[in-house]
């Protein structure tokens, strides 16, 4: 995982995107300046559209994806994750809003330019793979290149290269129906990488796989990203998956983004119960680091010093027997951390405080 500095310009950015379905879908937003209204106004508007029988799949969605970043979108089924990622690739035409790829509004490009962008800049992986049943592995992977009219030699060369990247050498002439789910998704991944895209969309790529294979695929995915440094939008409804791979993530509900931040921000400072619900069962000791829970105060002199990235779990035995706590080195400053800080951090993830009555 590469932490990107907040100052870099976004690769892809999504501004006030709305998508409506159902009757009168193109009427509701006709005279509304979507960029000019606040979050509360947007929420009321969405509600009034729903009351009139419209379907709001995306409500005023805005976020940025930085170069080389893995941006995860999470939410319950029907919360509009697929819709928003399809808006980003214009598989679904947004009803309103802007989508900027390298600063250029994707919604304004002609269909010819769009095809060109998809051929060279975008790749997408689907939940149920979306492989062509009549093509074998090699042909499936080479399919986008074939559509571009690339010559046989270069096409097959590039296809073979990505096939070996995903570890499918030797299965080139198998057909999708002869592969397991995990292998099929590797084909899907290879195909989306064959065009060497800059932005990479993955819509619940591992949801159809069983837990063991899913873990293995996540590891491979991270390995690939370490080599390739794509800008990634990754959809999942599994918080643990998000935790493992996300640099930053957004949580969606009823078509709207509820919170954006690093996974640990979401755990430590959930904006509402919906977000807390997701983070509740996370084995916190795996994620919390000394830097996350330490107080802002300077440490008293003469206590032990640990780096900010130390896992809290590893400090527990020490903190249990040392009330004075430890000093945590954040960049070049030292801050104080005691067992009190750990308890406070954990408490923020718990909404039900009624176990002890006053």
């Amino acid at each position, binding site marked *: 995982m590469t932490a990107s500095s907040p100052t870099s310009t976004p690769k892809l950015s999504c501004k006030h995107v709305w998508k409506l379905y159902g009757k009168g879908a193109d009427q509701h937003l006709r005279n509304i300046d979507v960029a000019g209204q606040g979050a509360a106004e947007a929420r009321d508007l969405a509600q009034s559209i729903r009351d009139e029988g419209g379907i709001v799949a995306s409500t005023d969605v805005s976020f940025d994806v930085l170069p080389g970043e893995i941006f995860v979108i999470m939410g319950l089924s029907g919360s509009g994750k697929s819709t928003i990622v399809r808006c980003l690739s214009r598989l679904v035409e947004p009803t309103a809003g802007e989508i900027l790829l390298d600063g250029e509004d994707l919604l304004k490009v002609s269909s010819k330019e769009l095809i060109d962008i998809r051929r060279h800049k975008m*790749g997408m992986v689907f939940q149920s793979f*979306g492989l062509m049943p009549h093509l074998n592995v090699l042909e499936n992977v080479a399919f*986008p290149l074939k559509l*571009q009219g690339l010559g046989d030699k270069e096409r097959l060369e590039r296809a073979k290269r990505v096939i070996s990247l995903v570890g499918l050498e030797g299965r080139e002439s198998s057909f999708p129906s002869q592969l397991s789910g995990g292998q099929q998704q590797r084909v*899907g991944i290879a*195909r989306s990488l064959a065009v060497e895209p800059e932005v990479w969309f993955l819509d619940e790529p591992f949801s159809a796989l069983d837990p063991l294979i899913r873990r293995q695929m996540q590891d491979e995915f991270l390995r690939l990203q370490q080599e390739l440094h794509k800008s990634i939008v990754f959809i999942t409804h599994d918080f643990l998956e998000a935790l493992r791979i996300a640099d930053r993530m957004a949580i969606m509900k009823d078509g709207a983004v509820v919170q954006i931040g690093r996974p640990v921000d979401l755990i430590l400072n959930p904006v509402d119960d919906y977000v807390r619900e997701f983070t509740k069962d996370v084995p916190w000791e795996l994620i919390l680091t000394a830097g996350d829970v330490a107080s802002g105060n300077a440490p008293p002199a003469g206590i032990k010093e640990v780096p900010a990235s130390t896992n809290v779990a590893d400090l527990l035995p020490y903190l249990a027997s040392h009330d004075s706590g430890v000093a945590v080195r954040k960049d070049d400053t030292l801050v104080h951390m005691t067992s009190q800080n750990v308890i406070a951090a954990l408490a923020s993830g718990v909404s039900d405080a009624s176990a002890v009555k006053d």
Partner: protein
Amino acid sequence: MDSSSDRSLVVWLAVTVLVAICVVFAKNLGPLVIYPDALVLPVTDPMNTAMRWFVVTFGWFFKAISWLLDWPILLAKSLLHAVPWAAWFVLWIYLALRAGGRGLAIFTAISLMYMVTFGFWSQSMNSFALVVVSIPMAVALGFALGTWGFLSDRAYRIIMPILDLMQTVPAFAYLLPILLLFGFGTTVGLVASILFAFPPMVRNTIVGLRGVPDEVIESGLMSGATPSQLFWRVRVPTAQRQILLGVNQTTMASLSMVIIASIIGGTNDIGWEVLSTMRKAQFGESLLAGIVIALMAMVLDRITWGFAVQSSPTKRGAAGWIICAVLFGAAWLLALLFPPFKDWPEAWVLNPAPAMNAGLEWIFVEFRTVLEAIKRAALFYLMLPIKIGLSQAVSPFTWGFAMTPAVTTGYSLIVAAVAAYFSFKGKLLPALWVILFALVLYSGLTGLAWVALSAVIVALAWQAGGKNLALWALAGVAFLLLTGIWEPSVISLYLCGVGVLLSFIFGSAIGTWASENDTVSRMVRPVIDTLQTMPLFVILIPFVMVFKIGEFTALLAIIVYAIVPAIRYTEHGLRNLPHDVIEAATAIGTTPRQLLWQVKLPLAVPSIMLGLNQTIMFGISMLVITALVGTDDLGQQIYIGLGDGDFGVGMTAGIGMAIIAMIADRITQGFSQQIQARLGVKLNESL
């Protein structure tokens, strides 16, 4: 009791009273019983005049098409004849091997060998030439229309009803206008075959293209497909299997129509061979040629089907084709060296026909009494009562007593007792239906006043589909009356009705048995599969051989063909019930018998109703063909129209037949939907 069943009761009471009046006062009601000729509109003459004008004015256009189409036929024919049979052998066996493995290859080899050794090769190739030319045209036409229907909703709404109509018009009726427009010749068979064969292709294309999963489309788009790439490289290949199933159905329809078209004569093909020998009562020869058609149908079906279901390609080999080409050449060379590999010598042709005829003769002599008894029993105790009614059919000569006033009174009393029993149990509607049935049985369908029969039909339509369907039925009945084809229509109704009734009773019984017993299922399956692929008039041959021409033969042919869907849908319906319901019922402790009668059958009713619907459709398509064995129904009118080139007569009869088919279709569909709604299930599969 709710208001809708109240209304049913009123309607059926009115109908019953009307029918009763018509039966009791049949002698006094004159024009209400027999539709007066004076009220028949003279439609046939104007139709003929219009057609003649059309032919004179636009005939050149169709002649030109005919001339154009002659070329590919000629080409196909000369190609099929020029290449020695031994070389075709190689190609076919290779195709069979690829499509269905060794079993199919052996079956194909035996079939081809049969054609050669029994001396039918050349006639078979004449028929096959038409099939070969018509398939690509029908496929292209069907694919184009299917694509259009897929792309445009409006096109879909236009195309679908037309297809429905085309598929209810009997095959025979297609021939007549085509014959008049294109003139005698092989093109008639070709054009008829294209028109008859393209609708299944349209349907399958639409179904296939619609069924492509969204994610496949989206992944195509994300691969940067242009609209045309998306269609040709993503949608079409993904829908390939369904489209190929369309090709399979188109092939079968095409062959079937090519065979039927030989009825117009002038073609030395295999269909003509069957017909001409049948007409000369050379049944042995007819059967031998009929077997060729059956074999062709089975081979073509299995091969095209085999290619279609290899939906997930697992191997591809150019090597096989090269070997095939080499062997093809070798076989050709061999034929040059040994002429019998090209032209099977006359002297070597097997001809068991005389022996078969002699054997048949022997059977007639030996079993005459048995055969006669079967035929007479069916005729006197089943067919005639329904056709002319108990009042006419019962005589001392057949039943051993006459319909004296005393007997009639007895009959009425029994009916009254049964009806009283039902009404006593609160089942008023069934009580009415018993009375109605008894009345109809008493006077017979042909003896029933037209007013009464029309009322029954319209009431049925109303019960099944409400006011709209009733209006449609009324319009249909009016057409039959006004164009003067009421009488043959009633005969059609009677023949088809009896046939369908029996097919349905036996078929659902067999289907039920097959659903409970795997051995039975395995035995029944290939038989019904084969019957379904068989071109219709092949089915006639064995019955004509044994029972000669007549309504009884027609009835048997209808039953044997129409029983197929009855069996299929019943078994399917019973075997595909929700598991949890069956398990729950078993857990409660039902006996297998109770399970079948009280759980499975009631749940399978919608599927069985769909089977009834298909049974009727199959029955009607066979009915038209049975005109060949001398029925006097609408099919015969079509046949006569075809023979005399009388457009008006043939066409009104053809439309009449289609109207009957459509009304029967909508009525059974309507009932099926009502039952589905009551059970809360949704069925839309077709088998």
